[in-house]
């Protein structure tokens, strides 16, 4: 009986050591400046496109700081910053970013880079929109023909951009939506998978599209409209609001990303020779 009790207490001891051990940093990355890290909440497009796999090792080599990225839709990523669960947010929805700063959750918004959105659709093009550059006209055709359209429906930056485009097409999507308009409430990749399976149209950022493997029958049907422009911004979460925010290391991430080294790294990221993101930290008003 005693031995059994001893076993139990050994078990308890092990459990707590284990829980503590689970806290130890991983030996995965080269263990320089072990334990020095920041948490970045960012969007699914920056992760799904493979950009972070390219940027973060360069940032760590240069500064010794590990950036841990949690990727969510832009709305959710900003919420993560609001709660203080990230040191830096790196998203793409300018109006929401400016509100985030105005409400005191962020220190300052800095433009970083842009890419563009493209309208993806089935090769058969049931709405007959291929060939136009006018995204508003294309959306009107899709609505008229009631062709299946997949919406992110997740408050992401891409979702916000899509809603703005419906507005630009003079369509009040809240009233116009029917069974043809399918809100899935998921990330960019999931939306592309769904559109592929349903033969639907979908708005995607170009980077995620280029990195997407399961294209099936899908292809780009509309691109090049200025309204499809997609600007990314980076913001340090306000340490005055959340005292534990790693001000110094977070600021170094912001400075690196918007500085010459980070901007060059962004421009260098290519898939099949095609550049995905265009650095524009120096562009006023971006």
């Amino acid at each position: 009986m005693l031995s059994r009790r001893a076993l139990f207490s050994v078990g308890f001891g092990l459990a707590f050591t284990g829980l503590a051990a689970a806290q130890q940093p991983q030996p995965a990355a080269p263990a320089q400046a072990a334990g020095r890290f920041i948490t970045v909440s960012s969007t699914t497009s920056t992760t799904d496109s493979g950009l972070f796999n390219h940027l973060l090792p360069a940032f760590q080599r240069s500064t010794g700081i590990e950036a841990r990225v949690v990727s969510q839709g832009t709305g959710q990523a900003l919420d993560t910053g609001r709660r203080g669960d990230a040191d830096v947010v790196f998203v793409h929805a300018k109006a929401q970013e400016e509100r985030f700063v105005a409400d005191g959750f962020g220190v300052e918004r800095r433009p970083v880079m842009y890419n563009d959105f493209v309208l993806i659709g089935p090769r058969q093009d049931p709405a007959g929109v291929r060939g136009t550059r006018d995204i508003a006209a294309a959306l009107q055709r899709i609505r008229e023909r009631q062709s299946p359209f997949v919406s992110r429906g997740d408050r992401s930056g891409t979702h916000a951009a899509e809603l703005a485009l419906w507005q630009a097409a003079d369509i009040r999507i809240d009233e116009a939506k029917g069974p043809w308009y399918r809100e899935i409430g998921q990330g960019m990749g999931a939306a592309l998978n769904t559109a592929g399976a349903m033969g639907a149209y979908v708005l995607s950022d170009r980077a995620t599209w280029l990195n997407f493997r399961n294209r099936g029958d899908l292809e780009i049907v509309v691109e090049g409209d200025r309204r499809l422009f997609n600007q990314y911004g980076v913001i340090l979460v306000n340490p005055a609001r959340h005292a534990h925010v790693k001000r110094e290391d977070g600021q170094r991430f912001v400075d690196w990303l918007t500085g010459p080294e980070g901007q060059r790294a962004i421009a260098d990221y290519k898939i099949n020779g095609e550049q995905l993101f265009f650095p524009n930290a120096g562009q006023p008003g971006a």
Partner: protein
Amino acid sequence: MDVASAFASALGLIAGLDPQFLQIVGLSLRVTLMAVLLAALIGVPLGAWLALSRFPGRPAVIVLVNALMGLPPVVAGLVVFLLLSRSGPLGGLGWLFTPTAMTIAQTLLVLPIVIALTRSTLEELWTEYREHLTSLGLSGARAVPTLIWDGRFALATGLLAGFGRASAEVGAVLIVGGNIAGHTRTMTTAIALETSKGDLPLALGLGIVLIALTLVINAAAFGASRIGARFAG
């Protein structure tokens, strides 16, 4: 996409021994096994207590525990998330987006299974052997170790069920872990990520590896119980 390429990528993952892949497998196993261990240490005593004690409202507690076996992982994840968020009551610990948070969430998921199965196993044994044990002077709490020993195989099955639930779920670990590469990425969150990137062969390959691991662990447990049973006569 054909299944053959999924098996090829599964074999490639195993044969290649890619350090990133091994790290993901290691983290999955560590988090899940730790959750099962914690759930066992908390749940077996609680289940035993629930089996032997009598108090008003006991049926309601039993129903509640049984119902919690179906606790949706996302809900467990959300609760732990709200507790551990910097804006939550335990935010000061800084545990959100760490393996510790994932262990806690999975412990919550496994715990009801361990409590409920311990309770039903021990209650049955207690009904059967009550007189015998009481005549040996083992009543109440003092009968528990004997009951646990006699019910060890049923309890082990309960722990395996708990392991299955924890290793297979993605909702809770995704919310509280954040699927951070090299830090909180597990087999299941990696599968979700690769699926969303459209790399379905790699996603399915990871799935095949996960199923194979579960198979190995269950086979080991089965073998151990066979050997144990032989020695116990």
